[in-house]
């Protein structure tokens, strides 16, 4: 669901959503800690904070629900190619 929402919102070149809940002090099978790696031209010209906030807006429901930790790597295609 997270993947779909992000795909729609940003038409990313690269999108990875990883459930990191196992690395934290929560029960097995939880969906509370996620890492999102997303590369999209929509991030062009936006500062880091802005990009993160964009992702937050798209995932508002999840954040209000079970997800309470979100690790975001948001790059433009140019930055991604460099790194």
């Amino acid at each position, binding site marked *: 669901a997270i993947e779909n929402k992000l795909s729609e919102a940003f038409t990313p070149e690269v999108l990875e959503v990883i459930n990191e809940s196992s690395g934290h002090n929560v029960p097995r099978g939880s969906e509370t800690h996620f890492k999102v790696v997303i590369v999209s031209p929509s991030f062009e010209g936006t500062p880091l*904070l802005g990009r993160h906030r964009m992702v937050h807006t798209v995932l508002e429901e999840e954040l209000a629900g079970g997800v309470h930790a979100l690790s*975001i790597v948001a790059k433009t295609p140019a930055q991604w190619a460099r790194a």
Partner: protein
Amino acid sequence: VESTSLGSVFETEIPKSPYEPPTMSPFMLCGLILIMALYPSTTLAFTMTSTLAFTTTQPRSSLLQRRMSEPFEQETPEKTKTRIDEMIKANPVMLFMKGNKMFPQCGFSNTAVQILSTYNIDFETCDVLADEAIRSGIKDYSSWPTIPQLYVAGEFIGGCDIMIEEYQNGNLGETIEKAKADM
């Protein structure tokens, strides 16, 4: 930040009435008399201070004092917002985190503390786990759903990921240097 709950301080540490002696068995009584005989000055000191504690209404901490004198009320969101405002203004580098500087209670919060420690500055932390009002308040205040959250010179920087990236590209260092200069 007050970390013990009010309830436990009341129920377990202060006897119901200051004028009722604690109950004890004859065995304990003999033991006590023995100690009193062997260590009279200690006993005297102990008796004097405990009498003082139980006969005056000296609260144990200023927090307790405030709570005892004010009627108990839920903190309003505005009050929380004001508190957050003040913290951010009073401290050039302010980190809202889980746990505190010495004992972070979350991997991301820990990373944030580690990063800030590499710069040679004083920074203040607020433990949101100990303060439920701030825990939700700061999320509304910053329009940011996760903890940790860093403020430098009153400006929201971001969470742990942003801190890492800005640390690596040198921006965080710059921002902190500027704040240091203004301190």
